[in-house]
């Protein structure tokens, strides 16, 4: 209701009776403003405004989120050193000097030496490559395989869904570490690929379930029905309507899972079935150092610290992305 308070500076000079008229004007100008700019999201700009989607809203949120910025900086740094480790570590990670075995830090060797007399700093830097490769490749494989299988199961339902769900139950039932011990102990290849293959094999059901669930949710939306009523085919409905609306949970879980795959690689390497020397990996170094924790704790702390920070960065990134994509928090 129009406020007729005479103290109001804007209404003060108006002639008697102007309070009500002023209110009417206000209502009219409000209506005009609404006509010009419907809904929220009024960006200053042309009359058509700037289109805003869920993703651009999420990006706006993320840019202001310190957790996101810190985790992205850490991850960018990790990617940089795994691509070009030589830029910050000039020594050879495999060069051993047994006379320095388990020696503490000294100039030029800030993290000290391991049992073989290799420079711990150099090995921590070079170890990032194995971790990042395993994490990124395993996540890509899991997300691709899981979202395709789970998405198709959710979309078509029926027998395909029943069979796929039972198969994923079977894979869910395999304990990861036990499965890794059995599966990887028979593999002699010392590169990262058997480890990645194993993670994809055991990891896809997790993403498949999430993809299936979010596809089923998206499929029931009226806009999918509307597309079907227009005569749209399955591929159009899946690619144009369902996939863009079902992909957010997969991205979030994939980001968080990336951190856990890095930790899993370290676990398997620690158990001696993951990566094998001469590959440089944090897991191998942690494994070697764990026997010497009383004599030379620095051998364990540096690779373990690097591993923790990396895993934490990916999980923080996933968490920030989840918050930004969650419509309930808006």
């Amino acid at each position, binding site marked *: 209701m129009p406020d007729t308070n005479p103290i109001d500076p804007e209404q003060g000079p108006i002639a008697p009776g102007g309070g009500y008229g002023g209110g009417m004007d206000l209502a009219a100008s409000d209506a005009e403003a609404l006509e010009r700019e419907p*809904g929220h999201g009024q960006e200053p700009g042309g009359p058509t405004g700037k289109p805003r989607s869920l993703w651009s809203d999420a990006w706006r949120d993320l840019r202001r989120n310190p957790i996101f910025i810190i985790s992205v900086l850490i991850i960018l740094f990790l990617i940089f050193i795994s691509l070009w480790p030589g830029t910050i570590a000039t020594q050879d990670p495999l060069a051993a000097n047994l006379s320095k075995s388990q020696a503490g830090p000294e100039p030029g060797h800030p993290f000290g030496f391991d049992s073989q007399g290799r420079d711990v700093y150099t090995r921590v830097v070079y170890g990032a490559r194995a971790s990042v490769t395993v994490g990124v490749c395993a996540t890509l494989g899991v997300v691709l395989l899981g979202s395709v299988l789970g998405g198709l199961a959710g979309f078509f339902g029926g027998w395909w869904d029943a069979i796929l769900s039972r198969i994923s139950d079977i894979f869910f039932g395999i304990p990861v570490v036990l499965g890794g011990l059995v599966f990887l102990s028979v593999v002699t290849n010392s590169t990262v690929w058997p480890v990645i293959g194993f993670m994809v094999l055991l990891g896809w059901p997790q993403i498949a379930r999430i993809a299936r669930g979010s596809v089923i949710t998206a499929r029931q939306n*009226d*806009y999918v*029905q*509307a597309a079907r009523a*227009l*005569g*749209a085919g399955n591929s159009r409905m899946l690619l144009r309507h369902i996939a863009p*609306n079902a992909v957010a949970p997969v991205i979030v879980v994939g980001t968080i899972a990336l951190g856990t795959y890095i930790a899993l690689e370290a676990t398997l390497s620690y158990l001696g079935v993951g990566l094998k020397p001469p590959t440089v990996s944090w897991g191998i170094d942690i494994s070697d150092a764990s026997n010497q924790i009383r004599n030379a704790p620095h051998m364990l702390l540096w690779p373990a610290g690097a591993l923790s920070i990396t895993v934490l960065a990916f999980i923080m990134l996933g968490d920030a992305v989840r918050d930004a994509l969650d419509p309930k928090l808006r």
Partner: protein
Amino acid sequence: MTEPTPVTSREPILRVRGLVKHFPLTQGILFKKQVGAVKAVDGVSFDLYPGETLGIVGESGCGKSTVAKLLMNLEQATAGEVFYKGQDITKLSGRALKAVRRNIQMVFQDPYTSLNPRMTVGDIIGEPFDIHPEVAPKGDRRKRVQELLDVVGLNPEYINRYPHQFSGGQRQRIGIARGLALNPEIIICDEPVSALDVSVQAQVINLMEKLQDEFSLSYIFIAHDLSIVRHISDRVGVMYLGKMAEIGSDAAIYEHPTHPYTQALLSAVPVPDPEAREHRERIILSGDVPSPANPPSGCRFRTRCWKAQDRCAQEEPLLAIPARFAQATTPVAHESACHFAEEKDVVGAA
């Protein structure tokens, strides 16, 4: 139909005969066995004439929306036929179905879920042209979309906006524009205004009436708001528990209802005149709607009907003009599925 209205003398554009939809109730995860069925729609028949609006009313869960989905072929009918210009569309698939879809379109209930949030308004309204490229040549599409926006009363410059930038009423206009894009002959409106504010409902209803005149559309208008249905409809069908209880012209249903369920529904319509309100009789039904998985024998309304007798439990009343009114010349002579159909003036002075 004996009522001498011009619409009924024409050939119907859509003939629905004995439409049935049973949703199976199953047990078991891998080896499913059917333990029953929800009889959502159980033998519904009606005609739709060119240029008319057929209102379908009924309370929640009576099968109105399922009828809409069956007509759109979004659900597979268990039995029955839907003839569009003499062709049974329930059995169609592939190319033939796609061709029929051009002529029958739908406006959805909830404008907040019926528009893809990841697509711009231009993409949403232009999608029909992507699916049916023969309707509009490629270079012409943007112009066509802007024309459609103009037709439904939206600024054509909004073409690059996303649905969340619009209010509910504006979104429903976008949904209507999408339905209009293919120049359909029939638009099925599944509660198109029940999710909107009352003030916006009138705007959308008036827009729909304007578009009906402009494009000579036939509407099937599903709603539970009796006043809105009366306002827009030429004929009205009343559904109860998957069956049509009564169908006739709006005057027949609203002024001369003969089915007790219709009478009970109408007696619940708010009357704005306090004088009339004092004098009218309110029919309060007892009990709840029975489960459609286990409907009563005979007449489905008998469990809540004050006129029910033994005959109602044994013999199912058919939807036909009651014999006692067959010779009547007033709108009271319309189809009503009741053994004891009689007129009862429930709206009173209004």
